[in-house]
């Protein structure tokens, strides 16, 4: 009798196989997977509405597991219109009617940051969310990915969802991370080099000696931007940094229950990409595509009207702290509006308690409350012809108000230093 040896697997394959309850899966295969969690926000009322329209007047009557559907008011919180207020009211009522255990009514923050702040996401899990940046959970070795409100409807009522097993791309990071938040630059660089759909349907699997020098905040940035290059997942292995982060958020027994995955040594990658963290210069994406990317040196001097730091991509404490370091003892150019929105209440508190908030205010920054609005184009609109440099997620045409505005993307140190100079500038002048 011959013994069958399981073929080597990527992290995505292991996570998909486990969730599907099978020994192995292959790229291209469709599998039904059991979910560990579902994140929803205001748009959950649309999931319910679609079911009403389909002929169930009462809408959703029961959830697969009220403990594992995480609901929060955050995309437009507090409401900025009557419509938003009504949607918030409907979500509150829906959450109460369905007995959702983890419902965040008031403490604000970007949904994904809330999910990790509150310890709702852990290694080895499969968690979906009704927002494209749910791939951020990959930073914690969790297969996270974004879905729409209709898939949410299936997910919250059945606890399962169909997936296609993805091919994997290995991102091999070498060298030590520099003094500026290089994570943004890594993803912009990849988009510029390979195109913004190079990882379409793929799992980006991050490894290499350089990973150890990346903080949790930096890993969140990389995983978050997975979707900007098309990826389904953007996965890191769980290491000491991961567990140090989780330990402050969940009980010991929860920590012990995690089942992290690591790739097999012989796992198959469609492509292996190496990036040296120590030599990568700051990058800037120019309008209107995420893959229209240049080293900062090629765009210095471009006048800006608005500088923005925030979002699930780069609105965490380290992002704001580095901006404060750049701004310390300096003033934002009076022609520039510098808007800073911490990713969550936890991050907000860190900014206040560390003194970072005061530094920002002294420099002339405007500190906004936490939330998605800055990145989503719900606050800080741009008029026709205006130019913004932002550390948020996207520079697509029309995202921040006028379709005739120009949006440039960069890391938060580049944004802060450019705000001081009134024009795009190289942050290494301030930090090195």
């Amino acid at each position, binding site marked *: 009798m011959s013994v069958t040896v399981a073929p080597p697997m990527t992290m995505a394959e292991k996570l998909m196989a486990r969730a599907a309850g099978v020994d192995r899966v292959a790229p291209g295969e469709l599998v039904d997977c059991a979910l560990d969690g579902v994140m929803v926000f205001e748009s959950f009322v649309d999931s319910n509405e679609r079911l009403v329209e389909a002929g169930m007047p009462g*809408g959703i009557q029961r959830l697969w597991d009220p403990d594992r559907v995480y609901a929060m008011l955050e995309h437009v919180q507090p409401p900025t219109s009557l419509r938003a207020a009504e949607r918030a009211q409907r979500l509150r009522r829906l959450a109460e009617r369905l007995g959702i255990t983890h419902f965040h009514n008031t403490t604000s923050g970007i949904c994904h940051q809330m999910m990790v702040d509150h310890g709702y996401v852990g290694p080895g899990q499969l968690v979906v969310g009704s927002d494209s940046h749910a791939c951020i959970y990959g930073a914690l070795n969790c297969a996270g990915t974004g879905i729409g409100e209709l898939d949410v409807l299936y997910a919250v009522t059945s606890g399962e969802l169909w997936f296609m097993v993805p091919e994997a791309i290995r991102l091999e990071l070498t060298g030590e991370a520099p003094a500026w938040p290089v994570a943004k630059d890594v993803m912009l660089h990849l988009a510029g080099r390979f195109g913004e759909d190079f990882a379409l349907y793929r799992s980006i699997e991050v490894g290499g000696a350089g990973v150890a020098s990346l903080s949790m905040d930096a890993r969140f940035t990389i995983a978050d931007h997975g979707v900007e290059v098309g990826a389904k997942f953007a996965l890191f292995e769980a290491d000491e940094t991961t567990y140090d982060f989780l330990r402050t958020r969940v009980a010991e027994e929860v920590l012990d229950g995690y089942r992290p995955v690591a790739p097999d040594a012989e796992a198959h990658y469609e492509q292996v990409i190496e990036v040296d963290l120590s030599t990568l210069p700051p990058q800037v994406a120019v309008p209107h595509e995420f893959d229209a990317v240049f080293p900062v040196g090629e765009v210095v001097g471009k006048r800006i009207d608005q500088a923005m730091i925030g979002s699930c991509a780069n609105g965490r404490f380290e992002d704001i702290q580095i901006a404060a370091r750049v701004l310390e003892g300096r003033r934002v150019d009076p022609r520039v509006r510098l808007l800073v929105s911490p990713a969550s209440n936890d991050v907000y508190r860190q900014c206040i308690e560390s003194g970072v908030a005061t530094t920002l205010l002294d420099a002339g920054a405007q500190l906004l409350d936490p939330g998605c609005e800055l990145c989503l184009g719900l606050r800080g609109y741009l008029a026709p012809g205006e130019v913004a440099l932002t550390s948020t997620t996207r520079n697509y045409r029309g995202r921040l108000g006028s379709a005739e505005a120009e949006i440039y993307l960069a890391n938060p140190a580049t944004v802060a230093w450019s705000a001081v100079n009134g024009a795009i500038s190289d942050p290494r002048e301030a930090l090195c």
Partner: protein
Amino acid sequence: MLSRRMTGRIVRIPGNDVSTDVIAPTFWVHRGRGEHDLATLRPHAFESLRPGLDEHMRPGDIVVAGRNFGAGSHREEAVRILQVWGVQAIIAESAARIYFRNAIAAGLPLIQVENALELFDDGDEAEIDIDAWTVVNRRTGARRTVQPYPPTILRILEAGGIAPLVRDRGLAAGDGTRAMPVRY
């Protein structure tokens, strides 16, 4: 619900990486006054890429697009607005992952065809055959074979999308039982 054979006028959306911010700009999505009101968005959908599209669209149209169509945010309005116009299918060179899922979940077939933009001019008549898995340009006679949908995706489309599927399987019903074996 799924039409096995679809013919329709081609509406061409040029370029690659057409994002959901272009298809359904945030400002106009959030301006919508009521739940069912995509009317506010409608005149502004695709505005920066193809102004006046709302007047051009007719029920039964088939949209053809380039690579990575629907990149970016998960907003379902970017699919639903096409359904408001009566679009019966999308042919794209490739689609962003979430956009593809959203289209299928809404019961809108999205067929991926290499070099689709080269296959059609605006106003051509296209024919999509779901049994033969072919896409044909009726004007030029050009024909492409496409990758058949896996059974899961076909079942969702045949049900008319996820909402009818959830209804039919009693997944959201309040009788306290997990009514159906949960397989698509």
